[in-house]
């Protein structure tokens, strides 16, 4: 399990629609926005990378000291972004794939408006469980 891991889903319009700290180390209060900041800045890179590759899983596209950003780009250009310090690429890829599936299920919910925040607690629980499983 990763010590630090911040998972985020960013919609097509670059709006974060889901955010979860899934690391084992409790999030430091004074570092509150650091992870967000790093992930946000990584969008610059994702934006460049997204059009140069057909791969969905872009591992370690950005590096911030010893934290790494991995991204999973979906067809509709929603991005699953993970800031992590673990090196378990396969695990992260599996994590992304499962969350992707989960996200698609959320999208199928007629009451969920695509592009809006995901507030489902079920989704949250599942994501955290997946994080425990794969990282």
């Amino acid at each position, binding site marked *: 399990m990763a010590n630090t891991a911040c998972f985020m889903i960013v919609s097509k319009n670059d709006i974060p629609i889901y955010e979860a700290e899934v690391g084992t180390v409790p999030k430091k209060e004074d570092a509150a926005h*650091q992870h967000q900041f790093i992930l946000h800045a990584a969008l610059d890179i994702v934006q460049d990378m997204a059009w140069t590759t057909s791969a969905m899983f872009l591992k370690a596209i950005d590096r911030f000291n010893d934290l790494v950003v991995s991204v999973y780009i979906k067809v509709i250009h929603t991005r699953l972004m993970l800031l992590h310090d673990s090196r378990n690429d396969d695990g992260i890829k599996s994590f992304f794939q499962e969350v992707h599936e989960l996200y698609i299920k959320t999208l199928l919910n007629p009451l969920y408006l695509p592009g809006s925040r995901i507030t489902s607690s079920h989704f949250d629980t599942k994501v955290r469980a997946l994080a425990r499983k794969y990282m």
Partner: protein
Amino acid sequence: MASFLPQFQSIKTTFDHVVLAVEDVSDLWPMVKKGFEERLPFKRAFLNNKTRNPVLVDELPAEFILTTDARLRSRFPQEQSLFWFREPYATIVLVTCEDLDEFKNILKPRLKLIVQNDEREWFIVFVSKAPAHNDQATKMAKKVYAKLEVDFSSKKRERCCKLDINAPDANFWDDLETKIMECIRNTLDRRIQFYEEEIRKLSEQRFMPVWNFCNFFILKESLAFMFEIAHLHEDALREYDELELCYLETVNMVGKQREFGGVEQGDDQATLLGPARKPLTQIVHDDSFREFEFGSIYLPVKQRGYSFIISFSKALTLHESMLPFCMREVWVITACLALIDATASHYKDGLAAPDVEKEFYRVQGEIYTLCRTKFMRLGYLIGYGSDIERSPVNSASLSMLPWPKPAVWPSLPSNASSEVLAKEKMILQDSPRPKHFGIQRKPLPLEPSVLLREANRRRASLSAGNMSELFDGRPNANDSSGPLSPLPKVNSVSMSRTFSSPGNFEGSIDRPMRLAEIYVAAEHALRNTISDVKLWESLSSIEEFEQKYLDLSKGAANNYHRSWWKRHGVVLDGEIAAVYHKHENYDFAANLYEKVCALYAGEGWENLLAEVLPNLAECQKIQNDQAGYLSSCVRLLSLDKGLFLTKERQAFQSEVVRLAHSEMEHPVPLDVSSLITFSGNQGPLLELCDGDPGTLSVTLWSEFPDDITLESLSLTLTATNNTDEGAKAIKSTEAIVLRPGRNIITLPLPPQKPGSYVLGVLTGQIGQLRFRSHSFSKGGPADSDDFLSYEKPTRPILKVANPRSLVDLAAAVSSALLMNESQWVGIIVRPLNYSLKGAVLHIDAGPGLRIEERHHFEIEKHEVGTQNMTNLDNPPENLSPVSTGVKQLTLEDGKIKLPDWTSNITSVLWIPLRAVSDGLAKGTPAGTVVPQRQSVVDGLRTIALKLDFGVSHNQTFEKTIAVHFTDPFHVSIRVADKCNDGTLLLQVILQSQVKASLAISDAWLDLQDGFAHAGKGDGRPASSFFPLIVSPKSKAGILFSIYLAEAPAKDEAKELQPVSILNIKYTISGSRNLGAHTPVAEELTGPDNDKAEYLTFRSELVLQRPVLDPCLAVGFLSLPSSGLRVGQLVTMKWRVERLKALEEKVASDNLDEVLYEVNINPENWMIAGRKRGYVSLSTKQGSRIEISILCLPLVAGYVRPPQLGLPNVDEANISCNPPGPHLVCVLPPPLSSSYCVPA
């Protein structure tokens, strides 16, 4: 070989281009030099790269050097092969000769000697000095040149060319260039091959102990450099890459870390690109290493430079304990700066393709950022930490970057007490700038762990420290771990002032250092490490530090912006803004903050926005940018509630309210869409009828933390079906106080046009400030253009129905009422799903109609079916004016107010009315067809009704109701018989005209002059007849016997009564629900009921004399016995007989023309023949004639046959047979079988 390293450097600077040797055999060089050098650099060159593929090189620089030049002479062979790249790539032999013999004897052997060295690529340029006009000389030169070609050129290769000095041929230069290129290409190919061979050999021995990286390096780098000379950058970079890889492998090899070097003064300066500086070669003392010369290419070099810096920095980390304090940081800074300087000066705008350019700037930005981070770290170490903005970016960069790990933390120099004092003072003076709005946040950390602890621990690791007493003493096992190891997970507590308080440990060398002392110690150590004067300067004072910091931030931001990495760029803009902010340059700061906020807000990263927005707000406030400040406050309020404390949010709100109530110079409408949202109420929508006002109830959500007073509020309604019309606003003028959360407000709604409406925009005023909100309740992203676009809910809030009738007024009865009597006229008031509460009915009786105002009006519930229940003969007992369910009303000013209980039910309003008719009814002779219409029109009266109703009497319904009045009877008379005594039996036929039973109690006839009653003479028939009851619509007859009296004298004409009058006294019993009924009781007349009960009807009758004095008799002849059939012609015959002789006419032929006319009902009969004509009839008594007319019956049944009339003859003089109207039977037409199909 390593000894060549210093030489290598100088060689590289000297020969950074292609060298072409010029063998000047005939001293021609000064003459042609100019022409040759004009060709440089070569515009186009095709060279082969390492894989032997031709590459086009633009602008290949080269130099012509005479072979006699010192630079090309006296080299050791070994040296030559090693630095082969600097050897000439072509040898150009310049010769001239004007004599064949001379050529043969002198020149040719010499040339042979020169070109015998096969290693070199050579060609000969024959220079002809013969003047153009001298044919002899020209001819000779040609001969010599021909000879030369024969001797030196081969079929394979042309090695000669000729230059006419006096008449230069344009083709010559091209020829020359081609030849030079050919030589260069060949040479290059050969040298590449050589180097590759050498390198391969060395690589094979790579893991043998004798292997020396230095040799390998020189070879590899020579090859790379040669590629660079030839402008084959791709190949050069590939070589450099391989070299770097190889280097790093070597550096990291265990056992090679004997000495890292870097301890000498000046080693800290990365001399990546500055050959003049001390090369890194000596840092890597044994495994000599040389930095790359990246000067001539910009982008790829930069990328590689960057990654080199990173990797070398890691290498430095490995050896950090051996290096001077902060060696790594300083080296990175200088390396970055050098790289930036070098590439930036080489790069010119528009040189490269856009994507390359973008990438270039990106790397530039990365380098700046890296440099900036390291620079901040140094600044922090020497105590400028308080000047570094504790922003997320800085915190993220620094707090995850481990402290430098020197073997021993630098200790305080002995003579530094004054500096320590100064630092102490600085620390004490430094107080964190209070954030605007009283926002209190724990400052973000800039340090991976507390510096005080880290520094002291590192000291303590050598000296017997007592750190564990001071701190929690958690041992950190990560001392020797590499840079990639996880961070020491020491909870980074922000700096606490207690650690830096003036110490109690004066004098002791082993006591833990105070913060100020650490700063000073670091400063001193750094002074030793840093050899770059400029860098040291920028760390020497806070001002300098800030300046440099600003420069670096700007550089990074600009480059990121140019590379379209807007997020990186904007974040750094925020850092620049923070510096400006601190220096009270609010204008710049606000501008930059705006950019940052716009980015974060646009992408919805609220947490990050919450960091910056208060700063922007503060700048705006100080700048007195009220509009901006206001919108910032609103944005702060609309951020996620969890991001700020309630107290802070209240501060935002109070600012908004304060500004709103102040006199703003340029009031701007405020968009509070995120703060005040609205929606219609749950449940059914408000439905209104056309033209009705209403009250609209709307739910408002306030995101304000406190109550907020809205001075006014208005909402627009947008019609969904009609977009042409602008939205209509409904207003609430009174102030509304919104509580946080859900509020329900009601707004008066003026009448709207039909249609359904949705809510549009909410506008209003807070204080003097207009605001607007156009968002519905939260849930979706605002104005997202996602593929499933988020549409605003179009649930209508109001529906105004199309105009429809809301009420109906109708007359309660259709049958006629009694004329000249006060009658109840019922008006059925039927509300159609609409409340008639407070309705007022205006009643205007038309001409000939009078409202009996003395009476009360009555109103009762209308019950369907009462008509059926009512027995006509037995009038219901409850006909009394006030029955159950009947209420009395009074008319006021022609208006009557309907009681509330009738507002939703159908009710009948009974109005007492009297139709006035002046004339008497006229009786008619029996048998004549009286036009019914006339009497109907006469009896028609109208009542104009106008009903005002609706919520605010806004609805009006007008209707004119026709009411039919009539006399109770229609009277017709006939003389039934004429008796022998001259008595006439006058039959009076009474036909009831009303739907009520009439009881005649008395009837008498006032005869006109010339007639007298027979018998008793009172004009009454037998009294035993009475009461005679006439059922509705039935007839009754009364016989009067009269006789002809003497006509009165003419002088009594005054009293002549021209008409007879029939008087009938009767009572009526009918229901007012059906029609005529007992007149409205005149209560005021007293208790004499009998009197009131009897009504009198008078009718005029006209009796005429003489009666029955026939001159002509008309007889209807019998019809054929077969009967009449529809469609069968029949001849109608009448016989006209003269009963009396016509005396007055004397005609020659005794004939009188009699006019006849056949009257038919055209619906029943068709006449074939003349309808009207004359027949001749003898004037003698008894003469007779037959008139026959061919007729066609059209309708089956009993119909009245055609009638023969004699218009010229008085009716009284005609005797008819049959006397009255009669009917004939017409059979239906015979069945036609023509269409029947036989079975």
